[in-house]
């Protein structure tokens, strides 16, 4: 008979609870807030800053409705929720001046923001509103192409220099090293020196693939980067660019920026709420340099550190992070372009350290400087926007060359941060904007309205038709369609999938397609009734026979959806995600849920004479009867 076991009903209830829980965050709206984030590479928003913010607000008599430190995003930020936009404006002004005593060198950006008003218990369940795409909320989107050939180029240049030095050090004579495309050609006068060279290069550089070439009279080695080394150079360049971009975007004070790799050599940058593309581009495309310098330990330098007297000739005053001043000599020991790598590691005492690798030229300078300045401090400074920021100060413990460690960093986190900063100071490879979109906020709002209206009107029209045409079964279909919508929105919210305008269109289209399954079932039931089958059996057969067809039709649409997802990008991918999820939820709701409801209504009635599925017309008798 048409009865569901208890577990099936429980499953439906669980699905409904899930749907409701994850859908409702979309209806709470958002409340005004201010967001405080650091724009200095060495300063981070933390709990100390949080109590400072609280104190400032309390001092001015502003009551907040919640303050939280968000560490999940690109850059840790403190978000303070406020009652209304007036308070928001006041708090923003107040905090900006209080947190940045030096207006010419601000350490924090204090920006207006909107926070979802979702209750805490829902947020704990990770129930958050859907993430809206730029076409719905306004903002700018950049697609940047990273010139990875240039990164390889740079690497080959260093390798070329290193080889020259290596052969000279080992006293192997060669007749010149030449670049041709992606390979290096090293010529020799005789075969013996070539054999020697192969051995030496092999031992010193694992990244090179060596091949013998030329003639006996004019032997040469053709050296190319191994595929693994090539990939590593490109990967590092891309990662470095992404890190640099993230650091720079902090300055724009965007609430939910996206910086993401796309494909092998592209980076997507999305800045919701930003309207000024020129300024965004200016900040993204800025050049920064990293320099290592000696600390001025002379008496004059020490005096200048306190800021009472100007720094001596040939020195400059910088600050470490937010406070401690330090006076550095102007001479540069090495610059960021000579830095080959920086990795967080552990020293021989198992303390956190950063292993730094320089190219040969810088290594030689370093050797000389360290020999002459043992036990003296050295600093690494990041110069950007004409201002310098000291990343680290360390004491030279011994004489070293191109490979050394920065130790005494405290914990592994600090070491990681420093390694990242050393690497990310400058862009590893040039980038070019190959796609740019700017959507005004009014257009975004208009798009949401239009999409919402289209879906709502369509849903209403279909519902009215279904109920008139199929009566009670139509109402059950509409109910299952509504549940489908609920589950779909719930899933999208849970996955935090980006909702775009084509995504909203996909919701509407999916609803249109989902009703297909219910029509199929209802028509089948009518057909069975027309044949004279008893109502209970008609329901069973209607659902069972229709199921195979429903599955077929959904598989073909699913194929289309999956390929769209794989090959689409941006808004189209948003469409594909909704489309695929919608097909899955619609099978569940149209077949499983609607059957459950029908069973609940009719399943327990033994002597069922008729079901309310609208008029059944029988061609044989020519008349129409209610079945």
């Amino acid at each position: 008979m048409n009865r569901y076991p208890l577990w099936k009903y429980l499953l439906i209830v669980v699905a409904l609870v899930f749907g409701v829980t994850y859908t409702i965050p979309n209806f709470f709206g958002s409340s005004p807030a201010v967001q405080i984030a650091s724009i200095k590479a060495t300063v981070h928003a933390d709990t100390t800053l949080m109590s400072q913010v609280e104190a400032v607000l309390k001092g001015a008599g502003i009551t907040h409705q919640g303050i939280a430190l968000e560490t999940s995003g690109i850059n840790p930020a403190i978000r303070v929720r406020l009652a209304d936009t007036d308070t928001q404006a006041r708090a923003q002004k107040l905090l900006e001046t209080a947190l940045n005593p030096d207006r010419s060198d601000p350490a924090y950006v204090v920006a207006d923001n909107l926070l979802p008003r979702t209750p805490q218990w829902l947020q704990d369940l990770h129930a958050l509103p859907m993430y809206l795409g730029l076409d719905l909320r306004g903002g700018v989107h950049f697609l940047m192409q990273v010139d990875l050939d240039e990164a390889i180029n740079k690497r080959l240049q260093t390798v070329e220099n290193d080889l020259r030095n290596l052969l000279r050090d080992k006293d192997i004579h060669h007749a010149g090293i030449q670049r041709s495309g992606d390979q290096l050609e090293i010529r020799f006068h005789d075969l013996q020196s070539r054999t020697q060279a192969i051995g030496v290069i092999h031992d010193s550089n694992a990244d090179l693939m060596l091949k013998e070439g030329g003639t006996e009279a004019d032997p040469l080695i053709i050296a190319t980067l191994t595929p693994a080394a090539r990939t590593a150079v490109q990967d590092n360049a891309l990662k470095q660019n992404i890190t640099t971009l993230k650091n720079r975007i902090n300055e724009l004070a965007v609430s939910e920026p996206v910086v993401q790799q796309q494909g092998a050599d592209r980076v997507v940058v999305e800045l919701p709420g930003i309207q000024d593309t020129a300024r965004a581009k200016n900040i993204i495309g800025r050049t920064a340099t990293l320099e290592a310098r000696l600390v001025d330990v002379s008496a004059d330098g020490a005096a200048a550190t306190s800021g009472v007297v100007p720094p001596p000739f040939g020195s400059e005053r910088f600050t470490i992070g937010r406070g401690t001043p330090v006076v550095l000599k102007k001479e540069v020991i090495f610059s960021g372009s000579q830095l080959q790598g920086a990795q967080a590691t552990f020293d021989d005492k198992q303390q956190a350290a950063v292993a730094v690798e320089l190219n040969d030229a810088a290594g030689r300078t370093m050797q000389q400087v360290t020999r002459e300045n043992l036990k003296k401090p050295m600093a690494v400074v990041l110069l950007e926007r004409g201002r310098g920021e000291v990343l680290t100060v360390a004491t030279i413990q011994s004489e070293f060359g191109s490979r050394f460690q920065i130790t005494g960093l405290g914990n592994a986190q600090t070491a990681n941060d420093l390694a990242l900063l050393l690497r990310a100071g400058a862009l590893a490879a040039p980038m070019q904007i190959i796609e740019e979109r700017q959507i005004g906020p009014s257009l975004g709002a208009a798009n949401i309205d239009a999409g919402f209206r289209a879906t709502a009107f369509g849903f209403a029209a279909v519902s009215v038709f279904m109920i008139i045409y199929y009566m009670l079964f139509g109402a059950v279909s509409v109910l299952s369609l509504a549940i489908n919508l609920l589950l779909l929105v719930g899933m999208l919210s849970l996955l935090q999938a980006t909702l775009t305008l084509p995504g909203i269109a996909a919701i509407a289209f999916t609803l249109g397609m989902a009703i297909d399954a219910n029509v199929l079932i209802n028509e089948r039931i009518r057909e069975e009734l027309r044949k004279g089958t008893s109502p209970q059996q008609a329901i069973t057969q209607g659902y069972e026979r229709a199921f195979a067809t429903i599955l077929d039709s959904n598989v073909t649409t699913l194929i289309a959806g999956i390929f769209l997802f794989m090959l689409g990008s941006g808004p189209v991918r948003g469409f594909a995600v909704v489309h695929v999820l919608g097909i899955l939820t619609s099978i569940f709701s149209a077949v499983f849920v609607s059957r459950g409801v029908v069973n609940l209504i009719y399943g327990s009635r033994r002597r069922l004479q008729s079901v309310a599925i609208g008029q059944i017309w029988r061609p044989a008798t020519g008349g129409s009867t209610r079945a």
Partner: protein
Amino acid sequence: MEFFRISRTIPFMRYALVFNVISLITFLTAVGFLAFRGLNLSIEFTGGTVMELSYRAPANLDAIRNAIALTEKGDFQVQSFGSAQDVLIRLPSHPGLPSGQQAEAVFAGLTAAPGAGEAEACAALHADYARFTQVPVADRTAEAAEALHKQQDRLAGQCVEMRRVEYVGPQVGSELAQDGALALLMVVLGIAAYLAVRFEKKFSAAAIIANLHDVVLVIGMFAIFRWEFSLPVLAAVLAVLGYSVNESVIIFDRVREHFRTMRKASVVEVIDSAITATISRTIITHGATLTMTVTMLLFGGPALHNFALALTLGILFGVYSSVFVAAAIAKYLGVQRSDLVRPVKEERPVSP
């Protein structure tokens, strides 16, 4: 209530030849237009810049064209978008010119003369904007940008507004076009493979031909009427391809069933009775889906217009081809009872 009271089998196949000739002619027309006139591809495929402007009063398109012609050398287009106030400008890409600056220059040029329905105060804003854009990007300050924005906010709703700017580099465009073509190919192959497993070869071939015919007709319509073919339109075409194949699947399902139950009937009779049995469902389900797409067309605004149009046309052609084309092709391919009705063990068990 029941709309379709069909008491006898409708002889669809009798008219099949007429419809197939019509199909062939329209198909060839669509192919001809696609081959010789081509699609009006959006900048996503061609590369270039699109700007959407919103004026306070109906815009004078000729004046806008003349103003752009002063600075823009290439082949640009100006058209109204959705309403008479909203204007869409498409600019070709110029190699070497940084993205975004082309749009800036055009906007500065356009605002040199007062726009339709603008307040007096807008002139000052436009002058400031022009001055701002004269400054090289690297030298622009946050303060200057902010001042401009404050001014823009203050005059919001009174001056012409730049609602959207999109720039797509030429290399991205050609890649998207390739990916799009690849997606189309993969969807067709994927569905063909599924149908081949699920059904007999002749049926899957017929279903694929019929639905490719739909795709070509929809894309052909875009070529004939010069509607803009964008990425979302392609997505709509693919989605509708997956959707309308299912119509053929349903009819073929019935054909298979009727081959089993109607032992004495001829092939044509079986096909006719199968289509007759499903026609009510076909019209009602597609009516429901069409209701959704047509509301999208009417209320979805200009951004969804072509997308909804492609869906609507795709559904209409899908119904037509499933009923009149797919089964007929199967018949021409010589489908027989023995192709479909295999030994009894294949039958799906039906519970009492």
